[in-house]
């Protein structure tokens, strides 16, 4: 299944860069039932990694309690305009997506 692109915004602020990411994912909790009363299996992003100029700076593990179309904000120290930020997510079905942005 095709995945929708993330929206990544990396903004330089002083000597740091604030990165905001909006991912497109259903984040099904595994608690809900469909019209036939069957439990809808959990389907969520389980791993997120962020790289700054090729170096992994942040890893996150998420459970199904993170909201649909998850938002993530973090601050990279020592990042300046023109640096590359790459964000990758992987869900519990084994799908993944990588997108990148340049610090502005």
């Amino acid at each position, binding site marked *: 299944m095709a995945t929708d692109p993330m929206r990544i915004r990396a903004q330089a602020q002083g000597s740091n860069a604030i990165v905001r990411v909006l991912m497109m994912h259903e984040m099904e909790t595994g608690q809900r039932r469909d019209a036939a009363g069957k439990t809808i299996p959990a389907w969520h992003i389980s791993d997120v990694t962020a790289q700054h100029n090729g170096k992994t700076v942040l*890893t996150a593990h998420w459970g199904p309690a993170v909201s649909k179309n998850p938002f993530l904000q973090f601050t990279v120290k020592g990042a300046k305009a023109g640096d590359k930020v790459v964000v990758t997510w992987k869900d519990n079905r084994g799908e993944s997506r990588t997108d990148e942005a340049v610090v502005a």
Partner: protein
Amino acid sequence: MNRQRRTALQHGASLAGLMLSLGLMPGVARAQAAGFNRAAFDAKSLADVLKAIGAGTPAESKDINLQAPDIAENGAVVPLGASTTLAGVKRILLLVEKNPNALAAAFDLSDSIDANVATRVKMGQTSNVYAVAITADNKVLFAQKEVKVTLGGCGG
């Protein structure tokens, strides 16, 4: 006319019974991703989560800043953030006490990440939320706050 209606009702009732039994079937086994601590995400309380990841006893700290709303109108989207000025924080956890599984998100920070992360979580009901920071020398510090939810995000 009446007879037909009765038959239809009976069919409806048996169908509902069938749906119920289907709903009681055990859930499909969830795929295990590498590096993903399933035990921590299955734990029901703060203490169990910390045990699952092998962290020590938590202490409440004023140095941890938990950003959460007082009242969340929509439990499906509750903005949560955690930040601290403490040095050497390598891990930040966000938990919602009364969710089916307490742990919502865990962040592993490298040295070049400021200890300041934010995301959005789902909350089933009014509950305490926790931000836990684990430092490089294994100190476990947390902050908590009650968030009132007027519309749950985990129902369906």
